[in-house]
């Protein structure tokens, strides 16, 4: 059964007024997760091969080659899971 949990180790709300959400991919699945995301999302910019600025369904986010992603303006956990499911499967 395809599940976001196959790729995601932790989801953390950031501390700060921005209310961003950080998604931490499982270490052994991070490269596969990033590959899948890059195939689905629109690449806006690639900074030094470390940060990928992406957009998907009007949601902007950044993926880091270290296996973390930072999502902005996410309304709730359900919306985040919906986007991650679309991006990863």
């Amino acid at each position, binding site marked *: 059964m395809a599940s976001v949990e196959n790729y995601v180790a932790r989801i953390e709300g*950031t*501390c*700060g*007024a*921005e209310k*961003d959400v*950080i998604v931490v991919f499982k270490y052994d699945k991070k490269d596969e997760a990033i590959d899948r995301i890059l195939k689905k999302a629109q690449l806006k910019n690639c*900074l*030094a091969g*470390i*940060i990928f600025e992406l957009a998907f369904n009007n949601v902007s986010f*950044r993926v*880091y*080659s*270290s296996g*973390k992603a*930072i999502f902005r303006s996410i309304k709730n956990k359900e919306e985040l899971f919906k986007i991650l499911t679309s991006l990863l499967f």
Partner: protein
Amino acid sequence: MDPYKIREDFPILKRKINSNPLIYFDNAATTQKPRQVIEAISDFYENYNANVHRAVHTISLEATERYEKAREKISAFIGARDSSEIVFVRGTTEAINLVAYSWGLGNLGKGDEVLVSLMEHHSNIVPWEIVAKLRGFTVEYAQVHADGTLDYEDFESKFSSKTRIACLSQVSNVSGVVNDVKRIAKVAHEHSALMLVDGAQSVPHMPVDVKDLDIDFLAFSGHKMLGPTGIGALYARRELLEKMGPFQGGGEMIKDVSLSQGRETCDITWNEPPWKFEAGTPNTSGAIALSEAVKYLEQIGMADVLEHERLLNEYAVKQMQKFPKVTIYGSSGLSSKCGIIPFNIDGLSSHDVALYFDNYGIMIRSGFHCAQPLHQVFRLQSSARASFYIYNTREEVDRFMEVLQEIEQL
């Protein structure tokens, strides 16, 4: 002091993150632990693990002896008059909550005021606001200047006959600014108010003497000074501890619980301080390991710890000021600061900055650092924070600058 020699005692510093050597610049959040502290915990569990104070058998007596010796060590480290003035707690937060509840519930009421500053960590704001709602007193906030320094005139002008306690951090966890708590304590006492100092960012980084500062309460955490998590201490003057009611009920904090003659109630007599405030089985190994951390710091010397951090801070700030997109917050008076540098980079959120550094194995903090009101003073969404300790080196700062330059050029 020799940070290169010190580093040999810290196993974690040999770790690599994303194939890069770990550079740990998040010391204001928590510090790494030397072998001596890690071994003190193992030694406890391998050789004399037992509950303290309650038994006559050999290893319980050994554990009790070591636990109380740890209290003596920590008491001497901050210049307390007696080890009975040291209450073991989980950390700074619990220490301040203990005062807010045990002293606050018994001594504060409608018409009274508690005076805090706007630069406080949430731990020195929220407990007072919670108890204020229970007891009907008000919490007054003293202003902070735009550069992050305390507005002493505003703080002092807010004292009145209603003020019962002033609460101030000795070092800001956001800006690293050192506050003159001795000056505020003097004014507090002139108004017959008590003085509580949040020492979470000062006790680990500089010499602190409660007698010299003439303060009534000092709260600090073990994990920010090489000790384990889940252990810290509250210093309080003995006469205050004697008058204060207990914080939590349970074992150890009572002297006697007896069923009243002919009644279905219990008569309870509290234990003596500090045990009156240590309900339940304490974090024995934590306290013993914290005393080992104190021993380690004493061997270096706290004046040298402070000097090392200030030199690193100065070295880093001077280089960071050359980056046009980098804004450093807080006072430019480096002599009045500890090794904490809050900053942002134009066009990037603090979390992006922290994640970029993370990619190179450099650990820094991002966010509010549990001090949202101060970020409102600075008009910031959040900030990135680099903070140094005894094992950090100039070479690490140089590597930080290389990555900073890369980020600025994105």
